[in-house]
């Protein structure tokens, strides 16, 4: 176990010193409310499953370091905006690291209650989804994931990414068109007809 005090943080480490109760409660509430969704978003942003738990933890460490600067009620937007950048940073570093790119195999953690046969379908569909998303430019993929899967409003996405609302709409429109075209290509490739 590596407690927070030993995390290799640099100039602005998260302090493992006991935080005020209210701060701890706020952080804990954020984790309860947003951890699972953030985990999924990181996966859809392209973080390999072998690293997504660490990346999610990283996002919350950033939040913890700057919680006093995040307005009450704005935590979700802050977390997603940070997740985009953590994922981006991770992808860039992975691209430079063949060793890491060939590290642990992808592994999924399906929701319980699905039988093995069904699981294959789900995994196949998710693999196809991630393939489709991987073909999208990152700025489109980010907006698509936040809007279609995480169900942020366009205003929330604009706030999270600090881009104009019109840009969010434009990117979503383009991302949807790419998604539809990619699904059609999948269908053609698999010989299935609607």
């Amino acid at each position: 176990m590596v407690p927070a005090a030993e995390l290799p943080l640099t100039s602005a480490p998260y302090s493992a010193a006991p935080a005020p109760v209210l701060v701890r409660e706020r952080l804990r509430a954020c984790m309860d409310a947003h951890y699972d969704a953030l985990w999924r978003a990181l996966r859809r942003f392209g973080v390999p499953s072998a690293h997504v738990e660490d990346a999610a933890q990283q996002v919350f460490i950033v939040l913890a370091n700057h919680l006093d600067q995040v307005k009450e009620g704005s935590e979700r937007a802050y977390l997603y905006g940070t997740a985009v950048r953590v994922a981006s940073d991770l992808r860039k570093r992975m691209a430079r690291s063949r060793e890491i790119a060939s590290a642990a195999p992808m592994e999924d953690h399906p929701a319980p209650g699905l039988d093995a046969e069904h699981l294959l379908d789900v995994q196949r569909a998710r693999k196809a989804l991630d393939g489709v998303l991987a073909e999208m430019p990152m700025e489109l993929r980010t907006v698509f994931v936040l809007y279609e899967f995480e169900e942020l409003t366009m205003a929330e996405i604009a706030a999270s990414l600090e881009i104009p609302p019109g840009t969010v709409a434009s990117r979503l429109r383009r991302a949807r068109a790419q998604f539809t075209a990619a699904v059609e290509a999948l269908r053609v490739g698999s010989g299935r007809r609607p």
Partner: protein
Amino acid sequence: MSDPRRLKQEIRDPMARALLASAELDGPAPGARERAKLALALDAPAVGAPAVRSVRSLVSLGLIGAAVIAGSIALAPRGHAADPAELAGDAPVEVSDPLPELPPALDAPTSTTAPPDIAAPTDVHPRTSRAPVHATGARGASLLEQMALVEAARAALAARDPGRALGILDDLERRFPQGAFGEEATVLRIEAWQAAGEGDRAHALARRFLEEHPTSAYARRVRSEMR
């Protein structure tokens, strides 16, 4: 301008729906959230608790930059400065026009009233706030089951086995009376009845379908069955 409906509420293509639903079934490994809390010293470790993962592994592997950890870059979600796509130059484009209409295959139904024997399409995930992953997972699983049955019926019909297709469609409607693929199932039933020589039943159902769903993406296909 109000936000458009989510794609999973609009889109009718089974494959696209399956892909979108599959994301809902994804989730962290059991205990991941608790490990994160431990790492942030929010919770005391329970006896026998699994070892805490930490960003140490990412740092030591060079996957997470110290600057990110320190928050000097990711201090606030100023968004895209670190995004390669942004660095590649994606100038914000202001648009005042609404999102375009979805292509015909994705058109939203204008009527939600279904005839008695036609299951109305329902919003796939009509939630307005995040539900626990297991709950959304169950919905997604149900959706994939429905999709599999629709695909099986379609395959049976393509194999010139309308009897089998009708049996599958009966099963689909029995198990999912308010299923997400009501229109697809009805269209397949019309075609199956037609193929089975039950033209009168096929025509009656086709007429009812067109009355209820005049702008359906399948309307033209159904009309062609009535000729």
